[in-house]
């Protein structure tokens, strides 16, 4: 009988080598992207970035209006999306856990979770921008709410499912109505989990560009009125990165660095929070 061992060993070395190579490939991309961001972005960081509004080519400008715009749009989006997402998640986990409706909502929510964001933008354009007759930060915020809410639905439901039933039963036995059991007992037990969901949603919403192009549109002036078009970091990166002027390209990179640090910071914070939770439980 032929000795199969050398062949099997060789195949094993080749394939496991490829698995190592795949990992190196993935890590290399992360390193290259983050390296480029730091290299290009840090050089442009100055006080002007935070104190001046975007300027036409040839003039000294900053990103103040875009940073403020990003914050406003995300905060309004969160104010709409968070109650919606958390309450819907509560329904799925508490009231309708085994009902048909919950099964359908869960399925639809999972699809919304990865639906193309540009399609959400078109939907909000049709729903809010066309009837209003003009672009507005509010429309952008609603689009972001539609993108963020499914994340919070999912995490809220998952977290509430972790609450042990005896806890609910004990509260009910004291005579608490169901809604009080949920708010005073279940929510408190999983508060950090729900906050994790909110952080993840904010991270996703902050980085989104596509749905803002035809809702918030962008604005080169300083604007805080949510019924008007408003700039935001992703929008200004989109505009300036394609600009032929070096100063604007530099600002685009600085904006990209700020955006990435914010988004990755939020997701790392969320991860740390849930890791802490896991440590407490075990």
């Amino acid at each position, binding site marked *: 009988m032929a000795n199969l061992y050398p062949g099997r060993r060789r195949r094993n070395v080749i394939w496991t080598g490829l698995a190592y190579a795949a990992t190196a490939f*993935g*890590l290399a991309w992360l390193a290259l992207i983050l390296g480029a961001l730091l290299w290009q972005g840090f050089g442009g960081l100055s006080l002007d970035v935070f104190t001046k509004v975007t300027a036409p080519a040839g003039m000294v400008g900053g990103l103040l209006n875009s940073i403020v715009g990003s914050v406003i749009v995300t905060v309004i989006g969160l104010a709409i999306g968070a109650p919606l997402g958390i309450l819907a998640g509560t329904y799925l986990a508490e*009231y309708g856990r085994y009902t048909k409706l919950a099964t359908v909502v869960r399925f639809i929510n999972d699809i919304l979770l990865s639906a193309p*964001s540009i399609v959400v933008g*078109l939907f909000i354009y*049709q729903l809010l921008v066309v009837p209003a007759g003009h672009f507005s930060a509010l429309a952008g915020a609603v689009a972001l709410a539609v993108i963020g809410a499914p994340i919070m639905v999912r995490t809220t439901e998952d977290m509430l499912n972790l609450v042990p039933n005896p806890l609910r039963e004990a509260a009910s036995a004291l005579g608490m*109505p169901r809604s009080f059991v949920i708010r005073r007992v279940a929510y408190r037990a999983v508060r950090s989990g729900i906050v994790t969901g909110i952080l993840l949603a904010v991270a996703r919403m902050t*980085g989104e*560009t596509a749905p803002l192009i035809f809702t918030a549109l962008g604005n080169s002036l300083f604007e805080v009125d949510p019924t008007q078009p408003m700039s935001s970091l992703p929008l200004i990166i989109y505009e300036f990165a394609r600009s032929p002027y070096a100063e604007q390209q530099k600002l685009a990179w600085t904006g990209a660095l700020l955006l990435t640090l914010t*988004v990755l910071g939020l997701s790392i914070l969320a991860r740390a929070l849930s890791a802490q939770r896991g440590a407490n439980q075990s």
Partner: protein
Amino acid sequence: MTATAIDTLSGAQSASIDRAAALKRLRLPDSLFRNLTLFSALVVLLLLAGVAVALFIGSWPAFSTFGLNFFISDRWSPPKQIFGGEAAIVGTLITSAIAMVIGVPVGLGIAVFLTELCPTPLRRPIGIAIELLAGIPSIIYGIWGVYYLRPVMQAYIQPFLINTIGDVPLIGALFQGPPLGYGVFTAGLVLAVMILPFVTAISRDVFDTVPSVLKEAAYGVGATTFEVVGNIVIPYTRVGVIGGVMLALGRALGETMAVTFVIGNASHISASILAQGTTISAMIANQFADADPGLFTSSLMALGFILFIITFIVLAAARWMLAELELKA
């Protein structure tokens, strides 16, 4: 003695009356909260229906004007008000296909590395690093792609492909033309990296569901790591892996910003994947702001509607497969 008995009785009675009153007072907020959660759940349901209905209404003028031609014509001419979406639809499918061909094997390779080969202390940091790739906003992939990847593609990778595979009969046609840096292949490559973390995360999760006994038994009879993965892990988790791959495909199909930056935005179809092209999402992102209301806007809406239907089918299939798996577990 009788007096005390009566006292206690009335005490209990008044307590139960108090309790009934308190419960009555709480009944309204209680049902209000319940209905609020039900309402929110229904809103989530309506959102998806709303997307479908709004996009369909918006795209109706285009569909009724061009009919089936909208799908099979690649003539996109705003000045003449003639719109055919074939170039965008085909571009979307091809970039996603390239992304899957590159991204799925690499994503699976990383998952295998993380579950079978990686030393335990390194597992968490490397896993987190790969997941960070999913956290980077897509516009960052776009700006990076234009400034760093495009020059490298133009100077090294595309000339290499043209000079090697470009001369091979049959598939050579896919790799011909001038090295522009921009193009369908570059977009597919960026998409591949963007879907990596999704493939890896789900494969890793399902790989972890393989009972250790099965793997240990295989190692015990002398199987190599490669044989364990190929004969035990992958067959055991096939449905889950396919579900994860479909989920990643859903992401690739709808990805907008990164693709817009690097695909070159040419609204026609080329035989070569090195040539410039477009996708549904890139086309919408590029042209929607300048589109005049009427047929132009409606045609872009129609493209959005088609994208929505395609991703809906892919994502629904993915979720269905993953749900089947959960039922089994």
